[in-house]
């Protein structure tokens, strides 16, 4: 299966889609026991694909100890000869919990003869178990500070007696809560504070490779509710949800009692609106600086609530946001706040960030509510990559989320990336990709290109192929679909760099999709290669002509190329064109006989994908092109849809001859411009009758493909800008991210 630019994918007539669904079956079979706070110990084992541990030894600065069964921590005579160890737990099996307490335990098997204080610090840079050393965090990449990048303030400290092996524990509650509130989980570093003097031996503790006594973390937590849905009526919104049940193997501390529901209108409930543990609330109480309103405080294990205007009447056609907290008999709420005997303990800043939320839009005429809302904790306008019916993978800031597109629930805790993700993750499934796993290819702003297993969240590989930032999404040339002229043995992952300090020496790299090994690199002004400015959009793969197309900026003019055609096998530059700067992906027509290229603020060009000749172009005005073109129709003439500054347009592109010749193409206006405030790239596809566009007015617009009439809209958040949309054609869902930090899903057609 392959994914196209905007979220559609061609699911080949095989069992592959079904097999993918099976891979995402929820990990736990709930028992019938209703409980709220529960306690479970998570052991870090060598079989877990996320997490890991290793030793950082200053005296062996380049040696990796990732497979060692025992790890050493020792102050020795100073930092230059110290040993530290790093541990990262795998929380994959706890995708949606509110952490009340977390205690890390290490089994110390050998001690020197000196009592010392051992601190744990949260690590602030990404590392890999197989490559981390005292000097480096990943292969060929040093820590910012040798010996590990970590928070200067210790999370906890424990004194280990110089003659007492055993199990020692550190409280890491705040860090784990922070991970569940939007901070990357890079684990902990354990060090012996040097002020205690020279301690040559320090302590040894079991690593995850040990036969027993591996690192563990005891979690006390509440689960979140699930399957939260809103159904809107005339002046009403009805919520339904599923209450949590105890995980297998958990110890139940209290019984589950019900829920507390907060409401806000025309903006989300704040992540800092936090009901206090131990406190009983009543309807119409308000919580937080946002004055979010308590509309339902239940202790009867209810699973539905109808808001007919609790505290204040619901006004039709406004977006009501609801956040549903689980609560137990001791009035612990499903927030990232520590357990306290009276009232809330310390809370993470965004302690209610991952509490399930949904919006309902009461209406006198039609139901318009979202099927789900997901909080990514940062604003991104990039559409999620889709595995239709199975997975929606979204990058937001430095986290990568895998979301069940049916329910909006997280499949696993987010994956922490070393830098921000600007583009849409590019997905490849296990059946069609040469890697043989469901994988997201993610270029990031830390210069790394990541391959991440979307079943587990484990980083399969990461490479730094160009020492420059990536903003654009990656493209994939799949071996399975390539013709005979594609002689490389594996899939090819390609992406261009965004090195803003140069207008001429950017790079376009190709790496092996299985390993990340560089296959070739094209560098601007190197050899015969023309100047290459920054690349801001995903490449397009032309399987028919065995070519890779991408666009770039061009130093603000037409003196250097902005359209590039490369040979995927050798990386040879086959063709360039000086069309003017482009921030948008080129689009290959269904028949691979026309390439449509949008010039930022300029024209839409129809290009011959063989010769590079221009068939024709069109610029309807209104500030010129502001998006890629969505192409429908299986063959010429093509219907192309695109956006300008304030409008959406559809043209028919036809040719006076077949095949088309230079200058022989004609764009004929079908409709437009249909006014949409600050429109995103429009999305439609062959066989569809509608066009979907995100607006700057907080709405997704559904335009009729035949007429351009903006007949229906869905309101997400009136104060937000809506990003590019994706269509899950299996579930009939349109999914879009918004500047309010949420991803919204609606059923389509509207």
């Amino acid at each position, binding site marked *: 299966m392959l994914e196209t630019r905007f979220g559609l994918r061609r699911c080949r007539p095989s069992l592959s889609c079904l097999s993918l669904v099976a891979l995402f079956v929820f990990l736990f079979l709930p028992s019938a026991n209703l409980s709220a706070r529960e306690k479970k110990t998570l052991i870090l084992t060598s079989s877990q694909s996320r997490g890991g541990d290793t030793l950082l030894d200053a005296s062996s600065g380049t040696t990796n100890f990732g497979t060692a069964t025992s790890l050493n921590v020792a102050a020795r005579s100073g930092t230059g000869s110290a040993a530290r160890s790093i541990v990262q737990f795998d929380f994959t099996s706890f995708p949606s919990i509110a952490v009340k307490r977390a205690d890390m335990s290490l089994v110390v098997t050998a001690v020197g003869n000196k009592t010392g204080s051992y601190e744990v610090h949260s690590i*602030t*840079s990404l590392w890999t178990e197989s490559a981390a050393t005292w000097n480096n965090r990943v292969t060929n990449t040093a*820590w*910012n*500070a*040798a*010996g*590990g*990048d*970590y*928070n*200067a*303030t210790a999370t906890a400290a424990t004194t280990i007696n110089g003659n007492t092996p055993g199990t020692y524990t550190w409280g890491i509650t705040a860090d784990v809560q922070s991970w569940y509130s939007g901070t990357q989980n890079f684990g902990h570093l354990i060090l012996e504070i040097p002020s205690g003097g020279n301690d040559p031996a320090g302590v040894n503790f079991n690593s995850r490779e040990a036969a027993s006594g591996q690192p563990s973390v005891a979690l006390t937590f509440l689960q979140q509710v699930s399957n939260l849905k809103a159904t809107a009526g005339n002046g009403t919104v009805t919520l339904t949800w599923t209450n949590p049940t105890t995980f297998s193997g958990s110890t139940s501390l209290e019984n589950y009692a019900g829920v507390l529901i907060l409401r806000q209108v025309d903006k989300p409930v704040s992540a800092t609106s936090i009901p206090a543990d131990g406190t009983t609330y009543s309807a119409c109480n308000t919580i937080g600086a946002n004055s979010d309103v308590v509309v339902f405080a239940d202790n009867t294990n209810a699973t539905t609530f109808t808001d007919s205007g609790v505290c204040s009447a619901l006004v039709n056609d406004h977006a009501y946001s609801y956040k549903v907290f689980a609560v137990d008999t001791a009035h612990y709420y499903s927030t990232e706040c520590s357990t306290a005997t009276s009232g809330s303990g310390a809370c993470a800043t965004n302690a209610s960030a991952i509490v399930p939320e949904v919006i309902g839009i009461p209406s006198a005429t039609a139901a318009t509510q979202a099927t789900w809302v997901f909080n990514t*904790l*940062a*604003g*991104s*306008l*990039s559409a999620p990559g889709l595995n239709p019916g199975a997975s929606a993978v979204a990058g937001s*800031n*430095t986290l990568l989320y895998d979301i069940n597109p049916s329910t909006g629930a997280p499949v696993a805790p987010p994956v922490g990336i070393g*830098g*921000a993700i*600007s583009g849409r993750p590019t997905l490849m499934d296990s059946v069609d990709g040469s890697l043989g796993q469901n994988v997201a290819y993610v270029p990031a*702003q830390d210069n790394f290109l990541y391959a991440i297993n979307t079943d587990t969240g484990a980083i399969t590989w990461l490479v730094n192929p160009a020492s420059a*930032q990536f*903003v654009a999404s990656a493209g994939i040339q799949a071996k399975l679909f390539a013709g005979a002229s594609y002689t490389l043995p594996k899939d090819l992952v390609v992406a261009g760099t*965004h090195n*803003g*300090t140069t207008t001429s020496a950017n790079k376009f790299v190709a790496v092996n999709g299985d390993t990340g090994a560089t296959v070739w690199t094209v560098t601007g002004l190197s050899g015969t290669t023309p100047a290459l400015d*920054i690349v*801001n*959009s995903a490449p397009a793969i032309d399987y028919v002509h065995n070519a890779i197309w991408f666009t770039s*900026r061009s130093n*603000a003019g037409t003196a250097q190329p902005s359209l590039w055609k490369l040979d995927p096998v050798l990386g040879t530059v086959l063709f360039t064109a000086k069309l003017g700067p482009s*921030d948008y992906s080129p689009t290959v027509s269904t028949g691979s006989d026309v390439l449509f290229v949008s010039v*930022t603020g300029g024209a839409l060009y129809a290009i011959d994908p063989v010769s590079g000749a221009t068939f024709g172009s069109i610029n309807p005005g209104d500030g010129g092109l*502001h998006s890629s073109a969505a192409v429908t129709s299986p063959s010429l003439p093509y219907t192309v849809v695109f956006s300008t500054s304030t409008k959406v347009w559809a043209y028919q592109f036809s040719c006076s001859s077949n095949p088309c010749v230079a200058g022989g193409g004609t764009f004929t206006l079908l409709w437009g411009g249909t006014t949409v405030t*600050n429109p*995103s790239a429009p999305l439609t596809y062959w066989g569809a009758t509608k066009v979907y566009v995100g607006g*700057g007015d907080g709405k997704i617009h559904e335009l009729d493909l035949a007429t351009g009439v903006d007949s229906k809209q869905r309101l997400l958040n009136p*104060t*937000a*800008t809506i*990003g590019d949309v994706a269509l899950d054609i299996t579930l009939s869902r349109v999914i879009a991210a918004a*500047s*309010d*930090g949420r991803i919204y899903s609606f059923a389509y057609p509207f």
Partner: protein
Amino acid sequence: MKLPNICRASQLFLATMALTAIRLAGCAESSQPPQNILTPPVAMVLTVCDTSNETCVGSINFSLGSVRDLSFSVAWQNVPAGTHTQQIAFVQPNGVVYQTISHSFAVADGTTGSATTSDVVPVAGTYITQRSLAGDWSVEVSLDGKLIRSEKVQLGL
């Protein structure tokens, strides 16, 4: 393309933390009388520039039509010895975080506690320019989890 007016010299931030601490030196066995040693407060200067402007020394106003990328340079002084982590949050006009950048650095014992970091947030060609996300953005600088300073940066159309 360079903007003629974005290079006016401006030191955006000169933040001081209320970290003034008094250490009491000496003990009963000391021959020296106890004395107060003033620990100088942590200070920092943040400079925001358009990366395409090689002579820029700082600005708070940028045009979406011409800005390339934004560089955030932070010069720290009087930071205690040890490993530290700086975080820069680039926050949208609506108050929602757009991006965060973490940067660790080490300060050696016996130094003045100075360190300089530099990070870049891409702007040209991103959704910021594609969707004209203009307005008063915020740059929030934290050190070791504590917010040190928040300042506005205007991205104009």
